[in-house]
């Protein structure tokens, strides 16, 4: 089963503003993380993939189908938008059933799949709960149920964990990993922790351009040997922030332990530390903005 997504020289303009600039990506089965700050162009890319906005240039193929063939693409894609919502007066079952009808499912299929999906997302006992009465986490889980109910080959999930409490966030990540076993799931987020916990293959997008494409370990490799921790007094913190890229501060009384990224050991007493994805991401973004500054 072909579940690959091929993006070649994709560009999208909104008037004079270029939201996507010559984006090239190839995404295979499993979880794929798309990381980037707010306004990087992630949502625009997601909308192009889900036929919700036209591309200005380039080619996009989903499972071999050009994105221009909207009808066929919509059959193989499931989408959970950033602000998923449904008609508030509908119950969970009714809302999911309505969207299943829009996906062209027969009555028999719906009778089987709707309860099954609700069970899968832990809403099995919430059939009649009105959507307006649901918590953010419940809504998001219902959102994932509607995105997979018609068994799509590709699932696009845009900022799914924003606003969720830690417990719901973990539960949601696990759910995503579970459904990614036999299909392609693109997770777009600005939360590094989500990517770290779920994806091996990632891309980093900034100002409409791909800054990095590879694996999480590849991203970490770039910052290896450049992360240090050191003890400073809280009085010195402004100076440290000015001189180095600080990725963490832990204060204790008048002293603080800071985690910094530097090309070489910054001061005597600085201890090399093992990097995490957040450090690697910050390093990448810092380099990119420095590069833009030079341009």
């Amino acid at each position: 089963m072909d579940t690959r997504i091929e993006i070649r020289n994709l560009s999208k303009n909104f008037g004079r503003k270029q939201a996507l600039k010559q984006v090239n990506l190839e995404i295979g089965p499993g979880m794929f993380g798309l990381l980037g700050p707010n306004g990087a162009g992630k949502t625009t890319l997601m909308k192009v993939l889900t036929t919700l906005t036209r591309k200005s240039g380039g080619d996009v193929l989903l499972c071999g189908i050009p994105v221009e063939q909207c009808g066929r693409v919509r059959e193989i894609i499931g989408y959970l938008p950033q602000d998923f919502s449904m008609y508030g007066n509908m119950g969970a079952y009714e809302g999911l059933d309505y969207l299943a009808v829009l996906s062209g499912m027969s009555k028999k299929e719906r009778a089987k799949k709707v309860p099954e999906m609700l069970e899968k997302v832990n809403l099995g006992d919430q059939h009649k709960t009105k959507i307006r009465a649901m918590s953010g986490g419940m809504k998001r889980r219902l959102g994932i149920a509607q995105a997979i109910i018609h068994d799509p080959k590709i699932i696009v999930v845009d900022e799914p964990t924003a606003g969720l409490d830690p417990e719901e966030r973990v539960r949601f990540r696990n759910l995503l990993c579970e459904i990614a076993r036999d299909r392609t799931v693109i997770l777009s987020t600005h939360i590094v922790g989500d990517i770290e916990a779920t994806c091996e293959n990632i891309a980093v997008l900034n100002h409409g351009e791909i800054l990095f494409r590879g694996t999480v370990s590849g991203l970490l490799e770039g910052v290896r040997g450049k992360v240090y921790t050191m003890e400073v007094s809280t009085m010195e913190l402004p100076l440290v922030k000015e001189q180095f890229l600080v990725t963490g501060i832990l204060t204790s009384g008048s002293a603080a332990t800071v985690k910094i990224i530097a090309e070489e050991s910054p001061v005597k007493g600085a201890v090399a530390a093992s990097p995490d994805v957040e450090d690697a991401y910050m390093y990448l973004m810092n380099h990119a903005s420095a590069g833009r500054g030079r341009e």
Partner: protein
Amino acid sequence: MFGTLFLKECRQILKSMVYYLYVVLFVMFLSSQMGEVITERLERPEPGQESYGTVNSHEESAVMEKILAGLMMETERNTYATYPMGFYRGVTLNDTERNEIISILEECTGKSLEELEREEQEHYEKYDSSTMEGAIQAQTGYSVVPRESLTYEEFCEHMERVCEIIGAGSSYSREELEAGVGVPMTYEQAVEEFEALCEKDRVTGATARLFCDYAGIILAVLPIFLGVTRCLRDKRAQVNQVVYARRASVVQIVGSRYLANVCMAFLPVLITIFVMQMPYQYHAKTMGVTPDTLAFLKYSVIWLLPEIMTVLALSFLITEFTENVISIFVQVFWAIGSLFASATLAGNFGFHLIVRWNALGDTGEFWSQRQELFLNRGYYFILAVLLLCLTFVIYEKKRREGETVYGKIFKRGK
């Protein structure tokens, strides 16, 4: 998929407060207009009755007599009724203008104002004007005979001048003259009318027309609210993107919503006609006439359904385009304009959205204008389909462009 979506939409409408408000307002309006069973005009006329009502006449002599009578009465009071924008406005003339009107009256009749006043007084003295019935009979029977040598063309030219003096929307315009005038019916005419009522209308047909006349007024406005509510529901619930990304085609999504709204808007009409036709069916049987049990249904489908379809299609189109409630104002403006644009309360269907037949009976007259009504309703049916197709185009554009068409225009305007 279409059928399932249609049923789901109907169920959603049934859960909507706006729909129940629609039903209540519709029923209240109809009850206020047709709450009482009117049977007095559905009786066989007897010889020697004081009055048999009026009949519309397009005969030139009758038109001249009644129009001159109206002009005489208004000139005496020096207050002329006009409806320039559909609303009443009384016009009072200065001495020079009034004198010109008087000279037109004298020119048309060959009599002085004093003579005309005397004739009018003599006419009114024949009736008991202290009762409502007497006053109506006196007014219905009053006419002013034009001079023998006055041709209809000359008369029309004089009336054009009268219109210029009084202003727009008076009773002397070319359209008003062409609409004909109400003249007292003779016994023979009344019998002929009654027989047409029994044979062609089978009683219920006449009452169905009156029902459609009233229902048509309120249905030019009320369905807008259903349409606007449905189209804004997706925006309010923020479900656009989820719906857009699904397999269903625009015809299936918008078409099922539209059809569900049309059916649900027509449902109270069906229920109301079922209840309202019963006393008239009973009355027809007491008259020895077999009633047309499907008359209300036939008239409603032909008369009211195209109107509901058009109003809903327009509200769908404007609301999908603008994503706000502006279509309510557009439609209310259109409905008021259509209501007051009609020259008469019965007939002259033209291309008015609201067609009027505010008369119980006048079977012969209606039958002669029936084709015009069919043409009018056919036009609105086609218009509704075209508006719906345009809505499909706009919805599909929004679905693919990723933002509203309105937003794009608005930004470009800036």
